[in-house]
């Protein structure tokens, strides 16, 4: 199987796996326990906190471990909105946010908050000037660092600067960006930043919310004082340890890997144009992640393309999935104003650490074949 779905999840780094196995073998105590066994477990967590903080140039005490991107987005958006409720009951999110942010906004809406949406341009990013036009009672603005479907990098620093001038806080979902592009939490200026371990070679089920010192935040999960009172619940020790090691390796490899992936992405895009001259690459003129290509193949349905590629040994992803599992047009592409005929024929290719030049060449031949098969099926089916 040629795996081109690294934005969904990427294989765990061997060093992270080894560290987790060692942790599961050696560290059995509760990190909150006062005895020295507990203190050993605590030390492993604090080591990982430093490693994760280093990846995004944050301070260790700004790192809150939690279960992953979805929880991080909920904690940040809801926790910040609650903490600033006296100032206003309105938050703003970009139209191209991950489902998790839309979900968190829904929770707020249920409790009487209003939601403002920031539109995306045709190239897939939010215009920072929109911040100046937001209603004054907006307390938090959510803007992701890089879009999971298109890879388009958002002008978070510009948005944060304008937000700060108006006394608004910024939440940045950096799940898809972390480990792929350099992140400096200070320079970015976001008050809340979410990253997830399994997108950068760590295990699933662990992530972190980086809360800038002084940023207001109410906890969602309460009842105990874990994570400095910001997230109750006994820590996912092995997950945190694996996350830390993965973050350290991702940081060390970042520059070289980025160069390598940009080269592979260029080859992929050339190959896609050879396979289908009319291919449309979404967000191609915007700054993008080095590993992500979202392309539409007019006349071929996404679900057919995905099935055809899967049958031929290439794993990719297509649009969004509805409750039944059927593929539906991506809301991100719709938000960019992509015509429905193109949106229903889009595929996301995402490269990663394990992707090789040779694999990519083989994949391109199979993609050409799959596009032909999907087009002839789609032509037969109205």
């Amino acid at each position: 199987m040629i795996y081109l779905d690294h934005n969904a999840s990427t294989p765990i780094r061997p060093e992270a796996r080894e560290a987790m196995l060692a942790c599961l073998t050696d560290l059995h105590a509760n990190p909150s326990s006062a005895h020295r066994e507990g203190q050993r477990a605590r030390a492993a967590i604090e080591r990982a906190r430093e490693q994760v903080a280093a990846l995004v140039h944050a301070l260790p005490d700004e790192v809150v471990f939690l279960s992953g991107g979805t929880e991080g987005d909920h904690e940040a958006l809801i926790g910040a909105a609650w903490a600033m409720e006296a100032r206003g009951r309105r938050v703003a999110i970009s139209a191209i946010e991950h489902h998790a942010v839309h979900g968190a906004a829904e929770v707020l809406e249920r409790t009487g908050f209003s939601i403002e949406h920031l539109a995306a341009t045709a190239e897939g990013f939010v215009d920072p000037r929109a911040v100046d036009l937001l209603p004054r009672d907006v307390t938090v603005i959510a803007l992701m660092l890089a879009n999971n479907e298109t890879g388009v990098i958002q002008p978070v620093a510009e948005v944060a600067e304008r937000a700060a001038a108006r006394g608004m806080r910024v939440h940045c979902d950096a799940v898809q960006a972390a480990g792929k592009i350099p992140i400096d939490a200070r320079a970015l200026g976001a008050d809340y930043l979410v990253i997830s371990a399994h997108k950068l070679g760590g295990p699933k089920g662990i992530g972190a919310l980086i809360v800038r010192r002084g940023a207001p935040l109410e906890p969602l999960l309460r009842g105990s004082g874990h994570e400095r009172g910001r997230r109750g619940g006994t820590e996912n020790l092995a997950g945190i340890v694996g996350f830390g090691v993965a973050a350290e390796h991702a940081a060390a490899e970042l520059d070289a890997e980025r160069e390598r992936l940009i080269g592979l992405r260029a080859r992929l895009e050339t190959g896609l144009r050879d396979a289908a001259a009319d291919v449309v690459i979404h967000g191609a003129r915007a700054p993008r992640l080095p590993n992500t290509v979202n392309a539409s193949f007019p006349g071929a349905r996404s679900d057919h393309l995905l099935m055809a590629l899967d049958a031929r040994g290439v794993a990719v992803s297509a649009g969004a999935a509805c409750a039944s599992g059927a593929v539906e047009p991506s809301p991100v592409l719709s938000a960019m104003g992509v015509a429905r005929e193109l949106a229903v024929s889009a595929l996301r290719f995402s490269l990663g650490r394990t992707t090789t030049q040779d694999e990519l060449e083989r994949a391109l031949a199979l993609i050409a074949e799959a596009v032909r098969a999907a087009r002839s099926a789609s032509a037969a089916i109205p």
Partner: protein
Amino acid sequence: MSGGVDSGVAAALMAEAGHDLTGVTLKLWCYGKTPLSPRACCTLDAIADAQSVARRMGFPHYVVEAEEVFRARVLQPFLDDYAAGRTPYPCALCNQHLKFGDLIARLDVAGAGTLVTGHYARIGRDAAGAPALLRAADPAKDQSYALALMPYAALARVAFPLGDLHKDEVRAHGRRLRLSLWDKPESMDLCFVPDGDYAGFITKNLGETRGTSPGPIEDQEGRRVGTHRGILRYTVGQRRGIGVTAGEPLYVLAIDAARDAVTVGPKAALDRPGLVTTPVNWLVSSPPAPGTRVTAKVRYQHHPAPAAIEPLDGGAIEVRFDQPQSAITPGQLCVLYDGDRVLGGASIAHALGAAPPAAAMPAAVAARA
């Protein structure tokens, strides 16, 4: 894979036999969050059941969006038929367009050579070696009637692993293979109308207004004997719910959409010597000669009756039965058999001895829609 026992076991048997399988469930209907009957075959739970068969047997499974095609090719004709006073048989259209149309077209996508379904029917060979659609071994479960509109070319590309099995054997296989769905109840109704209330579904869920206005119930002489509640609530041969009592039981004899009238009469008046079809879908290499003797089945539960066929213009045929048949219903299928072999099938246009209905949508009905 609908999520039912039959398609689940059919798939599992093929996987067990070592075939390289790809599971597909067509998403025909937007399920939303509406609770449907557990017997319905198109719910989210049903998709989960299909997926669990795929996981247990170790083959990939996909849910494929087919809502638009289902609406255009199955639901809309279903509505149009009811509005025109016919009694449609949507399963045949679904088989024709979705299962043996679109899924066949998707075989190359999945890199597959054969389409496997859980239908009770068999594929055989005729004297010339061409594929033939045959009745199932289990007469109680035989679904060849519902398959009669499938494209002839599809016959060469399908497999029906359940065709030689009885239903209890199918369940036994399901149990042996530890499929969670092995003892699921049978689905008796249309998959998209799980509670069997067609009229309620058509008016409430689909917002249909044609065929819903009250109109006259007449006897055979044209005398008004009552008022009906909208023609879509009636079908030829129906006895219950007419709301008119006479000296003998009354049955619906005919529905005239142009006049919005329902004609009723005694059971004997349902007998007709034959019928005229719409253009026939032949499942033989060339259509049979005029006068060919067949047995013809005019509804799912009908026992095929001996008849002779005569070609008409435009690919339709006239079917003349040796003995008159009761309740020949426009919109239902007429399927022609030579022994166990299905020769072809078509929708019933009208019974012989009954006035042919207006071909197009009656203006009076359309105006009210």
